[in-house]
């Protein structure tokens, strides 16, 4: 591309910086930057901005201040640890008074709060958690929500966000599962998450080192090692609807080893649903090559093909992070080949991404 004032791939400079481009897209853009003055300038501008931000003076402390703060911190930690057991120097009389005051405070709190139990409102309802016999787990209520830490075994959970507002997450040995108002079951074996089944609503599963995936109602997630006989990517299986506690009796959830889950995958392989509504399903359909194909057509100046490929990508992977890029590039491709549909495509972009990154550019094309 020549050194024009702008370039439709300009946005990729920021996308690359933020890690939103896959390996191939990154390579493609890096190659493009070598011949596009506008994108090269954009990359430099972002680099410069980052450098300038790093030159700002964060607070630094001299050594004396650091030592003083360190001592203050350790003393505070020490007090928190030691105080309940009695600090050296505190007399038995002082401790007796502290204990007596504590007992009185607890008694007062119990007397005050007991009548309130009968008036407990639905807003205070907690998630329903059913554990199987081998489950090792703990529950932690925090200011902004609740966390359940699952070390092994199976939990079946129902969360009603209407009556229990706040975040609800299950911390797993190899990741985290966030609930979005739902009924689901999760199993951990030998330090690894081996199954997540959603009966109602949706959960987002964030396995360490992998992109987050959404598991929707009626779907089951199993890790790649289990799904390997059928597919290398994490797999979703359609499962019959069941109540959450009933999932504890599901053979798949009581299976002790990954291999025992394989038959379920084999028999369900023909029923894997790859509807584009879920990011997880997008992951199975491997959207990256499709986006790359569209980009290749775009780079080659095959505007009609590029527009068609971007339209197909957007329809098939509407929740993919690149869906907005695809919608925008479709507008540009149609405009480049003087297609009358460019204006309509621009309007579709504005409707679908009202706060889109390229709104300003697209608005001029929609008129």
């Amino acid at each position, binding site marked *: 591309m020549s050194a024009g004032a702008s370039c439709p791939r300009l946005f990729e400079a920021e996308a690359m910086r933020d890690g939103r481009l896959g390996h191939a897209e990154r390579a493609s853009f890096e190659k493009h930057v070598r011949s596009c003055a506008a994108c090269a300038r954009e990359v430099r501008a972002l680099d410069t901005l980052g450098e300038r*931000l790093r030159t700002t003076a964060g607070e630094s402390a001299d050594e004396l201040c650091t030592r003083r703060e360190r001592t203050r911190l350790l003393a505070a930690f020490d007090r928190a*640890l030691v105080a309940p057991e009695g600090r050296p120097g505190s007399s038995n009389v002082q401790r007796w008074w502290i204990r007596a005051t504590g007992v009185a405070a607890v008694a007062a709190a119990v007397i005050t709060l007991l009548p309130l139990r009968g008036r407990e409102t639905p807003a205070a309802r907690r998630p329903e958690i059913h554990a199987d016999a081998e489950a090792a787990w703990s529950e932690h209520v925090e200011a902004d929500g609740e966390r359940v830490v699952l070390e092994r075994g199976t939990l079946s959970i129902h969360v009603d966000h209407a009556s229990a507002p706040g975040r609800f997450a299950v911390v797993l040995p190899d990741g985290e599962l966030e609930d979005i108002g739902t009924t689901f079951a999760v199993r951990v074996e030998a330090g690894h998450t081996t199954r997540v089944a959603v009966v109602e609503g949706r959960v987002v599963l964030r396995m360490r080192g992998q992109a987050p995936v959404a598991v929707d109602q009626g779907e089951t997630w199993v890790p790649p090692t289990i799904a390997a006989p059928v597919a290398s990517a994490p797999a979703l299986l359609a499962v019959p609807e069941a109540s959450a506690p009933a999932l504890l009796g599901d053979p798949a959830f009581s299976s002790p080893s990954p291999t025992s889950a394989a038959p379920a995958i084999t028999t369900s392989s023909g029923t894997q649903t790859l509807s584009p509504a879920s990011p997880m399903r997008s992951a199975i359909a491997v959207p990256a090559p499709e986006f790359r194909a569209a980009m290749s057509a775009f780079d080659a100046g095959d505007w009609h093909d590029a527009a068609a490929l971007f339209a197909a990508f957007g329809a098939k992977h509407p929740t993919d992070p690149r869906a907005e890029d695809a919608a925008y590039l479709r507008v540009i491709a149609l405009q480049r080949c003087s297609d009358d549909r460019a204006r309509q495509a621009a309007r579709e972009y504005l409707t679908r991404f009202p706060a889109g990154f390229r709104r300003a550019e697209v608005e001029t094309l929609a008129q």
Partner: protein
Amino acid sequence: MSPRHANARPSHHDAASPSDAEVLHRLAAGEIGALGVLYDRYQAPLRGFLGRATADAEDVDDLVHATFLAAAKIAARYDGRASCGPWLLGIAAQLLRRRKRAFGRLFAVLASLGGVRATSVDPRPAQQARDEVERALMRLSEAKRVAILLAEVEGLSCDEIARALRIPVGTVWTRLHAARRELRAALGDEAGS
């Protein structure tokens, strides 16, 4: 196309010294020396981050202090990642947000009593006159400022920022984009328009 800088992962502890995960394990068991090790490793990057994010020197000491105490309290929940820098920055960012809310409520109450004008409070000490970039940074909303600092100064990935701030990664992208746009406009960057 330089990679992002990585402040949050100090490399000053060698292979012979305990890993962050080991230190946090010891801390969870109540070992006070572990907190000292953690402080020595991360007080500087934490202080830098909080200093840029708040521009209020007096707050920084307290927030650094509170971050380490909070980390000690929840050390048992650490997920075992090689560097706990992003985790500590996440705690600091959460405390920053809560402190802002607490101050907001306090000033609202005082203002309602007629004892103080909330708008008259400038948390920035006059002597800390910042240069152009720092002023532009301070004009950002705190949410955008924290996101851009974690990304560009501390070198966290967008996924790490999302985890630290407990927000969707798409929100991180949006905040970064908006922060860059505002900073570039404020700094008169020709490519930022």
